[in-house]
C-alpha cells in the first residue's frame, strides 16, 4: 500500500481536493504519520506481537570515536555509532532488536556471524556491576551497548579494531521532511481502517473548531464548517443503553 492512496482517500473524504481547499496534502500526511506512529508502536510494543514484518536491518553502520566532548551525549574516546534511523522508544530499548558484528564473507559451513555474538543491552549506571563478574565483563565475545539519545555506545570493544556493526531496528515511520508517499507505506495493513478513522476524527475535530476562533483571511462567513458533537470512535454502544444490573 502506498501512502499516496491513504492520504488522498482521507483528503477526498474531507472534501479537500479543490482549489479553495483549506487542508493541503502535507498536513494530512502529517496527521497520518503522528497517528500511524502511535498505532504502530502499540502493535509492535504489544507482548503478543512477535513478528519480523517491521524489523529493519541496517548493515555496515560505522563505529566511530570522537576526540572531543560535545554536549549533550558525545563523549570522547568511547566507541559508538549513531542510530541510522529514528526508532520506537520501547521499554528497555527494545526498539533495538539486535546489534551484531557486520558479517562479510561468511564461510557457508559456519553459522551466520550475526548469530554468534550479539550485543547485550545495559545502561551507563548498570554497566558498573558488569565488570565485577568475569562472566559478565564486557569483552569482544560478550559485548554490550547502551543508548543515550541517538548515540549507541559499545562496551567490550575497546581493545580491538572494529569498524562496523549490523543492527536490527524497529523504526518509526519516515518523518514528513523525507517521506516519499509513492514508496511502500511501512504500516500494518490490518490497522489501516483504524488509522483512517482516527485521522478523520482528528480532521473533524479541526473543522469543528468554533467559528469565532477561526481566521479565514476573509470577511465571509463559511457555513460549511461541521459543528456536530464529536464522539469517540471506540464508543459503540447507543447512549441510551443502560448497563445491566
Amino acid at each position: 500500500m502506498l501512502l499516496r492512496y491513504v492520504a488522498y482517500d482521507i483528503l477526498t473524504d474531507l472534501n479537500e481536493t479543490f482549489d479553495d481547499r483549506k487542508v493541503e496534502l502535507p498536513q494530512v500526511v502529517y496527521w497520518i504519520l503522528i497517528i500511524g506512529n502511535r498505532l504502530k508502536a502499540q502493535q509492535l510494543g504489544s507482548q503478543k506481537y512477535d513478528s519480523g514484518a517491521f524489523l529493519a536491518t541496517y548493515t555496515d553502520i560505522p563505529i566511530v570515536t570522537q576526540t572531543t566532548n560535545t554536549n549533550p551525549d558525545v563523549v570522547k574516546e568511547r566507541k559508538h555509532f549513531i542510530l541510522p534511523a529514528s526508532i520506537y522508544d520501547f521499554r528497555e530499548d527494545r526498539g533495538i532488536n539486535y546489534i551484531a558484528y557486520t558479517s562479510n564473507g561468511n564461510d557457508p559451513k559456519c553459522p551466520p556471524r550475526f548469530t554468534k555474538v550479539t550485543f547485550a543491552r545495559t545502561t551507563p549506571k548498570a554497566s558498573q556491576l558488569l565488570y565485577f563478574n568475569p562472566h559478565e565483563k564486557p569483552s569482544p565475545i560478550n559485548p554490550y551497548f547502551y543508548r543515550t539519545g541517538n548515540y549507541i555506545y559499545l562496551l567490550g570493544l575497546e581493545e580491538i579494531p572494529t569498524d562496523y556493526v549490523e543492527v536490527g531496528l524497529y523504526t518509526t515511520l519516515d518523518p514528513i521532511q523525507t517521506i516519499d508517499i509513492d514508496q511502500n507505506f511501512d504500516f500494518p495493513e490490518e490497522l489501516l481502517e483504524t488509522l483512517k478513522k482516527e485521522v478523520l476524527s482528528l480532521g473533524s475535530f479541526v473543522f469543528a473548531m468554533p467559528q469565532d476562533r477561526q481566521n479565514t483571511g476573509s470577511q465571509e462567513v463559511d457555513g460549511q464548517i461541521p459543528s456536530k458533537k464529536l464522539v469517540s470512535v471506540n464508543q459503540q454502544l447507543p447512549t441510551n443503553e443502560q448497563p445491566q444490573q
Partner: protein
Amino acid sequence: MISASDLNDKILAALDAEGSDRYDFDRDIVHAINYSIDWMVSVFNMAFGANKLSEENLRELVKIRIWQTSQHSRIYIDEDSVTGLCHGVWTVLGVFPEPVTVPNLPASALPTVFESKLVQGYRYVSSQFSAKRLTLEEWNINTNNPFLAGSTVFSSTSSLRSYAYLNYMDYQGSQCSDGNIEIEIKPYLVNKYVAIAYLKRPDYVTVIQNDVEFPSVLTNMIVDAALRWIAFKQGDSTNLWQISDSEVNRLTQLMG
C-alpha cells in the same frame, strides 16, 4: 466566434432599422459592439472574483503556453508581436509547474538574471501540479509553513511539494520608470519551464469582416449589451434601455 456582420444584422433588426441609414456600422454599431466586448470583460471579471468562471463560456479565448522562468522564479508575460504572445492577456487561469511538453527537452539557462521568456513551439501535454494563487500577505508568511501551498520547506524532489504563485507585480528597482509586471512562483523554479493557462483579451472589431472572440452562445448577450450602448445615445428613459437592461441582468445571472 461571432461574426461582426451577424451582430450588425441582429442589432439593426432589434432597432427595426434594416435597410435604413439611421444606424451606420462605422459610426454607431462598431462602437456599440466594442462597448459590449468591454462590458462582457467587466462582467466576467466579476464572475472570476466570485470564483464562478466556467471556462467553457470563453473557450475561444482560453489558451495555454509554455514559459521559462527567470532566475528569480518569475515570468513576464510578454505581449509583443515578435518575442511574445501577439495578443493581450485578460487574466491568468492556471499556473502549471513542471509540465510535460512536446518536444520534451530540458531548459537551458537564460543569459540574464531577470530574463524569462515565452518558449515558442512547445506544446503543453500535462502536469501533476497546479499552483495555488496566493495574496501578497500570504506570500511571505506561508514560505516556511510546510502545510500550505508554496512552502519552500520540502525539497525540489519531495513528493509533498506543492506550488503557489503571486499575481502580477512590478519588481523594477527604478524610482520613476515602470518595469515589466511579472508573476512569481514558489517553491522557486530557476530557469524552468512552466505552463500558464490564460484568457486572451478579445480583440476589438474594426471592420465588419472581423469576428468577436466570444462563443456563439453569447450572441444575444452581446447584442443586448450593444443595444444598451445605443440606448445611451437615445436617452436613458426609453423603452429600449429598460428592455435591454433587464435582459442583460437576467443573462448575467444565468452566466453566474
